[in-house]
C-alpha cells in the first residue's frame, strides 16, 4: 500500500521558502554583531585630517573619545573651537575628571590598555590640542590616538 502518493507535478513550481527565516536570521545576527551604536551625538563639526600611515584602533570598548571642533550650531555657540566630552561641551579642566570616570567604568585589569582617541577637526589650531595633551599627561592617560582618515597619498598642496 502506497502510503505516500506521489504528487503530480503540475504547472508552476514553487520555490521552497521554509529556509528563508534562517537565512534572514543569519544576516540579522551578522549585523547585530557588527553594529556599533553611536553613543554620543556630535555637537562639534569634525573632519579628520588625512594620513597614510594609520593603524586600526583595536578593542573599541577600551577607547575613550575626546572631540575637538567648531560647534555645529555656530549661531548659538559661536565658532570658537570647543571640546566635547560625552554629550556636552567641556573645558580643558574637565578632562582629568573625564579620564577618571572612564577608568572607573572599565575593569581594573584592563585599565592600562585604555586609549584616548583624539577626534579633532583638521582646521583646528594646535593650541587647544596641546592643552588637552598636557592635561592627559597629568592624568596619566599616555596612550593616545590621533584620529585620521586613511588616504592613499596626502595632497600636500591643500595643506597651505
Amino acid at each position, binding site marked *: 500500500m502506497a502510503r505516500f502518493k506521489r504528487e503530480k507535478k503540475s504547472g508552476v513550481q514553487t520555490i521552497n521558502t521554509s529556509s528563508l527565516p534562517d537565512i534572514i536570521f543569519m544576516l540579522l545576527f551578522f549585523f547585530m554583531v557588527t553594529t556599533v551604536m553611536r553613543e554620543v551625538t556630535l555637537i562639534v563639526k569634525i573632519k579628520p585630517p588625512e594620513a597614510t600611515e594609520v593603524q586600526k584602533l583595536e578593542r573599541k570598548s577600551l577607547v575613550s573619545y575626546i572631540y575637538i571642533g567648531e560647534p555645529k550650531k555656530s549661531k548659538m555657540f559661536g565658532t570658537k573651537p570647543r571640546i566635547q566630552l560625552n554629550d556636552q561641551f567641556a573645558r580643558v579642566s574637565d578632562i582629568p575628571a573625564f579620564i577618571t570616570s572612564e577608568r572607573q567604568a572599565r575593569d581594573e585589569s584592563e585599565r592600562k590598555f585604555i586609549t584616548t582617541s583624539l577626534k579633532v577637526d583638521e582646521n583646528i589650531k*594646535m593650541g587647544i590640542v*596641546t592643552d588637552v595633551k598636557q592635561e592627559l599627561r597629568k592624568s596619566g592617560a599616555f*596612550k593616545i590616538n*590621533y584620529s585620521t582618515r586613511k588616504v592613499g597619498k*596626502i595632497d600636500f598642496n591643500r*595643506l597651505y
Partner: protein
Amino acid sequence: MARRATQEINAGSMADIAFLLLIFFLVTTTMDVDTGISRKLPPPLRGDEKPPDINERNIFTVLVNSRDKLMVEGKPCDIRMLRERTKEFMSNPQNREDLPEMISKEIPGLGIVRVPKNAVISLKNDRGTSYKMYIAVQNELAAAINELRDELSQEKFGRKYSELLSEKQIQAVQKAIPVPISEAEPENIGEK
C-alpha cells in the same frame, strides 16, 4: 497512528519579524573603522628634573611655526622632503659626522644590525600650527620609520614589515628601529 498532533506555532511570520529587525540593524549600523596615528605621551616632567643631555648630532629637530612652515635642523624645509630627510637621519648611510653615530648591535632574531646609537626626533609646534599640518608632519615621520622597517624586514625576512606574521619578528624589527619621536615641552603653557 494514534499520536496526538501537537499544536504548532505558526512560523509563517517569522521571516517578517526577522526582516524587520534586519532592516533596523542595517540602518543603524556604522561600518566606519576607527583609524589613526597612535602615539605615547611622555609622563609629566617634575620640576627638578632636567631633560637629558643629548649630543647635537643625535637630535633631528623639526619645528612647525604658526604659518605651517617647517624648519628642519635649523633650515627651512618643504614637507615633501621631510620623509627623505628623516630616513637619512635615521640610517646615516654615509656615516656623516653631523648625523647620528651608528653602531652595530646584536638583536635577537635579527643578528647584527646597524642602528643609530641614540637618535631622537624632536618635534615642536606652535600653538598656531594647524592640526592638519601637525598630523601631516607626524605622518611623514611615521612613514619614514615604516619605510626603514620595511627595508630591514625585507632584507632579513623577505617580506614587508606590515606583512610579518610572527610576533617575535615584529618585536625584533621594532627593537632595531624604534619610534624615537619626542615632543618638546610646550613653552607657553598656561597663557593664551
